[in-house]
């Protein structure tokens, strides 16, 4: 019986899950062997969280509840780490303010 986990988190980043945050998000997802997916609604559609093409295609704006689910080895850790990244605003706060 493989592990599975699921969580939701609010995207508070100014323009949503955009280019740079998506790069960080997919890179982090790829560090886990579990299968990880994201969705903008509890009933899907679900996108591969390790594919930047798919994550960008979700076009999640600011204020979206992002659903994250994982299946397999380290599923719980994967979901926790990704939720944490979104909560930390993709570590972009200070950096984002400086760019014109």
């Amino acid at each position, binding site marked *: 019986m493989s592990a599975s986990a699921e969580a939701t988190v609010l995207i508070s980043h*100014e323009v949503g899950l955009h*280019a740079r945050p998506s*790069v960080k998000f997919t*890179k982090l997802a790829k560090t886990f062997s579990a299968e990880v997916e994201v969705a903008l609604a509890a009933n899907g559609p679900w996108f591969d969280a390790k594919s930047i*093409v798919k994550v960008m295609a979700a076009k999640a704006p600011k*204020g979206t509840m992002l659903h994250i689910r994982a299946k397999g080895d380290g599923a719980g850790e994967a979901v926790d780490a990704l939720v944490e990244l979104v909560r930390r605003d993709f570590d972009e706060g200070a950096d984002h303010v*400086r*760019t014109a």
Partner: protein
Amino acid sequence: MSEPLRLTGISASAGYAEGPLFNLEPVAARYTGKATSADEKAALEAAIGVATGRLAGLMETADGEAAGILEFQVAMLEDDALTGPAFAAITAGQPADAAWRQSLDAEIAGYETSDQDYFRARAADMRDIRDQVLRALTEDGEAVAPAGAIFYGEDIAPTRFLETDWSCGGGIALKAGSAASHVAMLARSRGVPMVVGLGVAGLGASPAHLAGVALLDAEHGGIVLSPSKAEIDAFRRSSSSFTARRDRAQTYLGKPAVTKAGTAVRVQVNIADPSDVDGIDISTCDGVGLMRTEFLFGKTLPDEETQYRAYRKVLEWAREKPVTIRTVDAGGDKPVPGFTVEEGNPFLGLRGIRLSLARPEVFRVQIRALLRAAMHGNLKVMFPMIAVMDEYQRAAALFAEEQAGLSARGVACKMPPLGIMVEVPSVAIAPEAFSGVAFFSIGSNDLTQYVMAAARDNASVAHLNSVRHPAVLRLIASVAAFGQAKRIPVSLCGDAGGDPASIPVLIEAGLRDLSVVPAQLAMAKAAIADVSV
């Protein structure tokens, strides 16, 4: 020698460049098909490798924004979800170039149809990715731009900008393009002159025009092809004066603006999008003299929460300094689907406050968002296109009604000072009808075009559209004098406020409060320091 050809556009990054034109139009791809689909796949794989390698090379020297753009492109190219469909098409019998183009075009179309500006703008990044791989596939002596060239074409890719050595000058002149693009942002931060929106008029350029030297004036937004000797001399004078002004201006940025005679002048900034403030240090300006709200009214009408968050962000950034938000100024040259109406003469029709009052259900949403946001800073609100006092009173009454409604529901809110734009001549000629408003903000762009009956987007009457015409200046001076007598603050938020050539006459007319685009902040302060009033 062909006649000079002058094209006007919009400045996206101020500066001057003189040099040969480099045509950005893509040369027809010359891809040689391979014998088997396995060879086609190998060719595409190699081209993706070359493109990724190039990006990685650029990343070594890139920082901040540029590194972010490149990292995104590399991640895209490394994703099987992007490349998979192209390989599948090759298996189905397509040559590599067509397969790649088709599958990327499908991806690009997905971005182009997004209802969010941010994601729509990413289509340019996807086209860049597509073209880089195509370039690698069809490599046969890619044309190299000469040093100091002015890149001329429809649009320019971010990677093209980043791999160009700008140290020996050069600039960018685009027929389309946008001042909000990644490249425009990069150009401003690196000081590369750039003009966008030169339009289809460029099609009139003959091969002889395109072969010679061109003069790019990205301070005012224009380019001259095949210039005359006299034009070259005048251009060089403007260019060196600009460089001297810019270098000197930087030393003024951090200081309060004061004239030679010691008169203090407030200098605020105009912003069009909340993210505009991200690159501005609040200590360098006296607040926001004009925050436009049209950006919120894109394809759909914005809800209260979206507006509230946008206003709050800017108010919190400004801390205790004033932020003057203008209620939506749709109509005229700014149509909004589902809100504005089709009219034969839109500049004289249902625009600005007239439209808001005609659509109170839309206006009330904005009013509630503003009343709530007022809790988070020093908010002032102004109405555009006011012509008679009755319009102000009706708008103010809607504010009072909504405030009562919010308070009854226990929602935190506050009534901001309510002022008006002075841009319809009736207000400027007879300001005494408006002694009850909290402040005046002169919209010099519209005031000038209405006084001179010369549209500002029409190049053939551009010589008439001058804020320095005595008729316009006399009205500005009379509004300033009226404001002083009645103790009503008067500011100016049109383009003239940031124009070094107009600043002296505006101060002479009695204005002591100007609002300029952020890029002109330092230059405006420097120009004020030169005024002897």
